[in-house]
């Protein structure tokens, strides 16, 4: 058996409180940002011209609610959502070490591969649930303020964003396999920040070398301004790099996990 539905149920139930908290917190943040749109739209026209250039570096002045969402709301969604995803992946395995439940889980008649797969599926499901909740709360907010928006682009952005979250979750998941069991979860919180900062640096710089950094962060192919405002071409390189990396690291994690020593 490569998967245990009973273990999945246990893992999912145990993570439900955290999933609800994160989904509602980020979802409500998006609601709050979007419903403020009718009140803040006039502010943009009052911004002095010398600040406009600075705003351009972060997506420029929005001309409709979706552009406003892309420039003002998504930063929080991607940053905190990225941290949620990375922690979700990290804690799926690290929690057994932390709570010393390793011996009780791995004495069961299931292979390490089955246990790892079950936990990975739980991580994927949680990230999908999180993304769907936030997506529908955002849609609801657009409807509440009565603003029209391009549903296709909005959906497309959310699909790319969810893929990026899944990649961050996988990186967090894999990190545990290669780290000592006693390691704290700070590492999982840190790397979404690092990728985000790389994406900001690569987008604000005029240096051609630094611009190349955009290929080594998953935030590039899920860039909200490119997708929702500029309608730019899809960033294939960043997507392929991180898809390849995620697959490669997942395979490595399965291999490494067979050799892992449970000494907690």
């Amino acid at each position, binding site marked *: 058996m490569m998967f245990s539905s009973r273990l999945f149920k246990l893992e999912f139930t145990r993570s439900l409180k955290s999933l609800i908290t994160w989904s509602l917190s980020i979802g409500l943040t998006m609601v709050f940002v979007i419903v403020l749109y009718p009140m803040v739209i006039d502010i943009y026209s009052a911004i002095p011209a010398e600040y406009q250039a600075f705003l351009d570096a972060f997506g420029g002045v929005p001309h409709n609610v979706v552009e406003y969402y892309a420039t003002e709301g998504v930063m929080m969604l991607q940053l905190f959502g990225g941290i949620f995803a990375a922690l979700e992946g990290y804690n799926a395995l690290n929690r057994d070490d932390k*709570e010393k439940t390793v011996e009780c889980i791995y004495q069961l008649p299931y292979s390490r591969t089955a246990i790892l797969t079950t936990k990975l599926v739980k991580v994927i499901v949680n990230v999908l649930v999180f993304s769907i909740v936030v997506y529908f709360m955002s849609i609801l907010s657009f409807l509440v303020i009565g603003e029209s928006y391009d549903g296709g682009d909005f959906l497309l952005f959310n699909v790319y964003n969810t893929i990026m979250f899944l990649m961050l979750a996988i990186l967090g998941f894999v990190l545990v396999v290669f780290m000592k069991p006693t390691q704290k979860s700070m590492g999982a919180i840190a790397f979404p920040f690092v990728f985000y900062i790389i994406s900001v640096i690569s987008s604000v710089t005029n240096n051609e070398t630094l611009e190349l950094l955009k290929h080594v962060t998953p935030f590039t192919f899920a860039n909200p301004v490119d997708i929702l405002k500029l309608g730019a071409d899809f960033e294939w390189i960043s997507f392929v790099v991180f898809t390849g990396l995620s697959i490669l690291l997942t395979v490595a994690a399965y291999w490494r996990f067979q050799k892992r020593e449970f000494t907690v």
Partner: protein
Amino acid sequence: MYAISITSLKKYYGKTRGLENASLDVKEGEIYGFVGPNGSGKTTLTRILLGLIHSTSGEAKIFDQDVTKASVLLNRQIGYLPSEAFFFPEMKVKDVFRFFQEMRKVDDSRIVELVKRFDIDMNKTMDQLSFGNKKKVGIVVALLHNPKLLILDEPTTGLDPLMQQIFLDLLVEEKKKGVTVFLSSHILSEVEKVCDRVALIRDGIIYQVFEMNDIAQLENKKVSLFPSLEGELPDGMTFLKEEDGLSHYSYIGDINSLLKRLSGQTFEKCNIRDASLEEIFIQYYQKEGATNDVL
């Protein structure tokens, strides 16, 4: 076929020795004690048997199957009680049992029986339980699927004397049903009560394997005298210490020879008794440069 068969098993954690060239065989249906002080390698061996860690070299088999290759199959037949039983802290005891029952695909008749026997409160969450009560939950989890082999790491630590007795009685019952028990412990009184054989381990090395019947027949005595024995000590007699106004000796040999030697002197106090397993154990562990002899 042995229930457990270990040959030249070695485990190093980097440069630190966990287990050195350990070999032992546990027969099916016996209760086998594995005794040693903390850090001696008991838990290392237990974890290798369960496939939680991997040996550096050597071979470990359970029911003739390599533990590294057949861990899923073997885990169906093994009930394991860790020295500290950790379960999901926020879950109620009954939910923990339900989880393991469903994972093991067994009915709840055995759980009901064991819960009654160990007087477990099913409605408390795991983090509300004391160390001893968590241990009782661990005992039920180890036994609920009627395993053929029980691997128990310090099983009675944390249990009150009444529960210890109930648990030891349960082990004897399991043995009667044909269950093999591998019991790692440093509490010699429990080993003495239930084990058929016992292995002594120190610093990762198995020094001795005793048949409990042989220990009972060993002419290993403790002698306490006042005043102390005059003249040269007889063969097999070793002076241990002066304590409470008495001279204490150990004696290995024919009791009649000893009595004959003692009859040549007048004593105010004289006490001769069989050495306990604990005393034999301490004697071995204190012996410098003990060799890897196996009886």
